[in-house]
């Protein structure tokens, strides 16, 4: 690899180029787009969790004012094949998810008919006039019960509700026998909703003349949606364009293909007019993919010195009604078992996982995927072991964290940690919070009704995963590469096009920083475009903490190629040796003779002028497309420390202090990294204390509004201190590691451990998240020695 003096753009807290339009109301989200002749779709959604559809009467709806079309699942069946997520994983069963349910509904909220009208108001009027004859079926609610012989089935063709089972094993768990202490429990991490503030939305336009479909959709993965739509709708892929314009948050939830995207596309083709659907919040809370919802039985055996001997776990995941495309039903639960050992030395490990279908909204990837759960369980077990041994929680972690000399380290589930600052991040976090003083204060402050607690969580995650393994193991998709096209125009300005899509991460800024530095131009000379399958190279999108690593790597490679060509052209024009040239700030010059210079614009004009101005045999033009595959990817890690105060009377938890020490490798933009970390902590805090998707006994959703489903507001968030440990990745071009998900991985565990620490003197352990006031009340009430007396 060549080296060159850094111009300091990578690593600078550059202000975002996205901000101007978003701050002035000039962003363009799907709901903002208007096409001539555009119609509006609304979906009729099942009130039943599990029912047979005996008949649908759409007569009155068709006659409703402003209604243009009404379609049911039977109407659409010949126009769009059902979504089916395939996987090579043994023990996996795929499901068919139709664009509109026909014959059977499998969760409350599933769409059974669509009304297309002149406005959303008219379309909803049409919904009111559809009658559906349902025959309710016994709902499948509890995944462990659903595994039993004789349970009602969601999908007849799978012949079981267990859509997935998997086992990991290393060493011999007979090693438990020699443990000084074995701790274990059953842990519950409840169902969570992503709640992007922009609801899902899409707008389809079909051009009958060319047979071309354009879908604007609020998605993280336009490339994946394009491929899938082409296949499901039978349209040649080169005639399908998918655009993710400004997207109002995704968090993994917008990385699946949704039935509405298929239905709206099919409707636009059928009606010959653009059709827009803007999901509302109720639709979002009922139908967007949900997260986590795992039931874990885990045990940890440790030696007297705290050293881990063995770990075992069984994980049951409630994956809801369908296996989502492209990630499959395995995405979440496999990550729980494969990441459970965390950044620790675990010589003996056995993990088993089941993904079980139930009559609930489909489970999909969500920020952190599996690791918030695995980290919660592992960190809880370590704290318990420490309490049993009379060790400090920090000390037991330091005794087990993998040290730099042990890297690369192959985890017992087969993951490889290429690098990491595991112990360093913990030590630094302890230093920043002044851990010793916090502990001393805690011992002093034992006033009966308000307890303080300190919780630590260390984790490692795999980011920027290359082609060695798909981001979702087994899934039939390529997630290991991304491309970048870097083009210099005759004016000397630079356009960098990516297959990535951005939904708040600031790629237009960070990728411009990378291109500007690696190419040698000013930051404002670079424009990044993304999220449009017509505009960038083939790619999938943004998910799995990959864009800085893979997109950044592709940006570096393409920038180098353009730079090299620009220098060769400049050398030719300046009659100099290319090795004597410098290029930065958009100007190339001969080292030691700064008057002999050419601007990038002059170079580009030569490039496009053709053979006359170019070195013999050089192809005209000044652009390059390069793809990058980091192969294995790279590990990112962090330690979170939370200090909480628990009010035993109100059964309420408040955060007093929150520290994150994170290592995402070489920083592209520390301001943006900090924003990602804190935003992730907020979602983790929600998971720890507030957020829970609740279904009733019959499978009816009880959290269908933001009055019932509670995400953190500014008032619940503490000030978060973020420290960057910048340890460049040895494995990735640029040294970058991914950072998008990390905050959410560490926070639930750190907060849960802090609460458990506060309540440990009362003999209370935390096994269930979120720790709601109701749950705390029940835990406290169950303690005879600590009746809920109050002041």
């Amino acid at each position, binding site marked *: 690899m060549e080296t060159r003096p850094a111009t300091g753009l990578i690593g600078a807290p550059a202000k975002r180029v996205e901000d101007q339009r978003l701050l002035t109301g000039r962003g363009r989200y799907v709901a903002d787009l208007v096409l001539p002749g555009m119609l509006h779709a609304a979906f009729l959604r099942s009130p039943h969790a599990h029912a047979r559809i005996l008949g649908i009467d759409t007569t009155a709806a068709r006659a409703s004012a402003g209604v243009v079309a009404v379609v049911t699942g039977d109407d659409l069946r010949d126009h769009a094949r059902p979504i089916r997520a395939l996987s090579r994983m043994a023990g996996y069963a795929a499901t068919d998810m139709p664009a509109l349910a026909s014959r059977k509904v499998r969760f409350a909220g599933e769409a059974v008919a669509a009304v297309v009208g002149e406005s*959303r*108001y008219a379309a*909803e*009027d049409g919904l*009111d006039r559809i009658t559906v004859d349902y025959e309710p079926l016994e709902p499948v609610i509890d995944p462990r019960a659903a595994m039993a012989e004789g349970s009602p089935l969601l999908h007849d063709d799978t012949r079981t509700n267990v859509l997935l089972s998997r086992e990991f094993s290393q060493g011999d768990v007979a090693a438990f026998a020699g443990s000084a202490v074995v701790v274990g429990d059953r842990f519950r991490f409840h169902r969570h909703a992503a709640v992007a503030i922009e609801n899902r939305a899409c707008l389809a336009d079909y051009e009958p003349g060319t047979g071309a479909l354009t879908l604007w959709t609020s998605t993280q993965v336009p490339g994946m949606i394009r491929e899938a739509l082409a296949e499901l709708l039978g349209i040649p892929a080169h005639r399908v364009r998918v655009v993710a314009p400004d997207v109002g948050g995704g968090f993994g939830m917008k990385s699946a293909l949704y039935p509405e995207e298929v239905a709206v596309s099919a409707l636009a083709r059928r009606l010959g007019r653009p059709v827009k659907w803007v999901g*509302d*919040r*109720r639709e979002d809370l009922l139908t967007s993919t949900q997260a986590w919802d795992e039931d874990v039985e885990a045990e940890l055996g440790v030696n007297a010195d705290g050293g881990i001997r063995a770990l075992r776990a069984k994980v049951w995941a409630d994956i809801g009604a369908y296996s989502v495309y492209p990630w499959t039903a395995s995405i979440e639960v496999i990550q729980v078992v494969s990441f459970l050992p965390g950044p620790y030395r675990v010589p003996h490990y056995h993990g088993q996982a089941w993904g079980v279908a139930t009559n609930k909204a489909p489970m999909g990837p969500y920020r952190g995927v599996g690791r918030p759960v695995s980290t919660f369980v592992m960190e809880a077990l370590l704290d318990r072991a420490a309490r049993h041994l009379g060790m400090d929680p920090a000390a037991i972690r330091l005794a087990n964290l993998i040290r730099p000399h042990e890297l690369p380290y192959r985890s017992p589930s087969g993951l490889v940690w290429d690098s990491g600052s595991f112990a360093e991040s913990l030590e630094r976090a302890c230093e920043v919070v002044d851990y010793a003083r916090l502990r001393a204060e805690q011992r002093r402050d034992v006033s009966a009704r308000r307890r303080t607690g300190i919780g630590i969580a260390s984790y490692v995650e795999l980011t920027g995963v290359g082609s060695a393994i798909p981001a979702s193991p087994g899934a039939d998709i390529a997630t290991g590469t991304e491309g970048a096209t870097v083009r210099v125009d005759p004016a000397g300005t630079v356009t960098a096009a990516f297959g990535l899509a951005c939904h708040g991460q600031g790629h237009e800024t960070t990728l411009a920083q990378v291109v500007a530095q690696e190419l040698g131009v000013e930051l404002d000379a670079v424009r990044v475009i993304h999220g449009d399958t017509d505009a960038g190279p083939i790619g999938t999108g943004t998910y799995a903490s990959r864009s800085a690593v893979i997109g950044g790597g592709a940006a570096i490679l393409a920038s180098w190629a353009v730079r090299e060509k620009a220098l060769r052209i400049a050398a030719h024009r300046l009659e100099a040796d290319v090795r004597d040239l410098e290029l930065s700030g958009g100007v190339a010059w001969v080292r030691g003779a700064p008057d002999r210079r050419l601007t990038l614009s002059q170079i580009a004009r030569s490039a496009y002028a053709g053979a006359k101005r170019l070195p013999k045999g050089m192809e005209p033009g000044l652009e390059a497309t390069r793809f990058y595959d980091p192969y294995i990817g790279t590990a990112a890690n962090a330690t979170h420390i939370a200090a909480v105060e628990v009010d035993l*009377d*109100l*059964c*309420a938890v408040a955060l007093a202090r929150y520290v994150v020490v994170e290592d995402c490798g070489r920083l592209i933009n520390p301001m943006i990294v900090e924003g990602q970390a804190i935003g992730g902590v907020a979602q983790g805090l929600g998971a720890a204390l*507030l957020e829970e998707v*609740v279904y009733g006994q019959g499978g009816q959703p*009880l*959290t269908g*509004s933001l*009055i*019932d489903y*509670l995400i*953190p*507001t500014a*008032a*619940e968030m503490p000030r978060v201190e973020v420290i960057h440990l910048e340890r460049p990745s040895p494995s990735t071009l640029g040294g970058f590691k991914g950072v998008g998900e990390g905050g959410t991985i560490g926070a639930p565990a750190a907060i849960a451990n802090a609460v458990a620490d506060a309540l440990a003197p009362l003999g209370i352990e935390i096994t269930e998240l979120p720790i*709601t*006031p*109701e749950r705390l*009340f*029940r835990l406290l*009430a169950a303690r005879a020695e600590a009746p*809920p007396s*109050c*002041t």
Partner: protein
Amino acid sequence: MKPAPFDYLAPESLDAALEALARHGGDAKLLAGGQSLIPVMNFRLAQPAVLIDLNRLRELDQIRADDDGGLRIGAMTRQRTLERDPRIAERAPLLHEAVPFIAHPQIRNRGTLGGSLAHADPAAELPAVAVALRARLRLRRAGGERWVEARDFFAGLLTTALEPDEILVEVALPPPAPRSGWAFLEVARRHGDYAQVGLAAGVSLDDAGRCREARLVYLSVGDRPVEAREAARLLEGTTPSDETVAAAADKASQDEMDPTGDIHASADFKRHLARVLTKRVLRRAFARAKGEA
């Protein structure tokens, strides 16, 4: 989530509004601040044929200080005004203390006193405060009016004494008793959320420092504001102490409410919170009555 169609009337006078209501009766809904009604209409859980908008009735948006020290507050007075008007702070400090607990500033900028009372959500602050303050409510119909005590106004979940042709136009608050104290507190999952339990309390002391009268009115523990009179009786005639307060808290939370659990709080937890709040609220109220806070 868009409302179903309706006819919209925006009368410019109370008489015109009453006449419109008389004409449409049960088919009509009155639109005050709209902060509860419009979301319900957006969900299409309410589909009135006619909406009569009261927002142009300036005559209902005023506060009058009575000579006897009481207040007359127009039903269309915004919650923001209740929060800021110095007459409220002076003459109805309990109301002044409770209003900031209502949702968020945007909601209070639109939401009205009368709208909240007439909506009769048992989780709302203002109905409980109205009962605790012994408010009297003036209900008008075309060609007549009547006064109803707040405690008689709330008839059940989202149900009031209002007849289909009546409009709540004014709320009269009596002057505070001498040596009186008050406090309002509620517990919510997040800042601004509906309360899991709340308590509006007023106490007054006699010359010997004994509790002359106590009023404890809870929100979110029943189908309407729930007043704990037995608990109040335990306090009345005694010198306030930790023991009397604890006894009142036990009485109120165990015997005088029948909360229904929801996804955020079981009935038992609500009782527990009610007990905790009772102690905290009474301590503050008595301290204020004694001039200590």
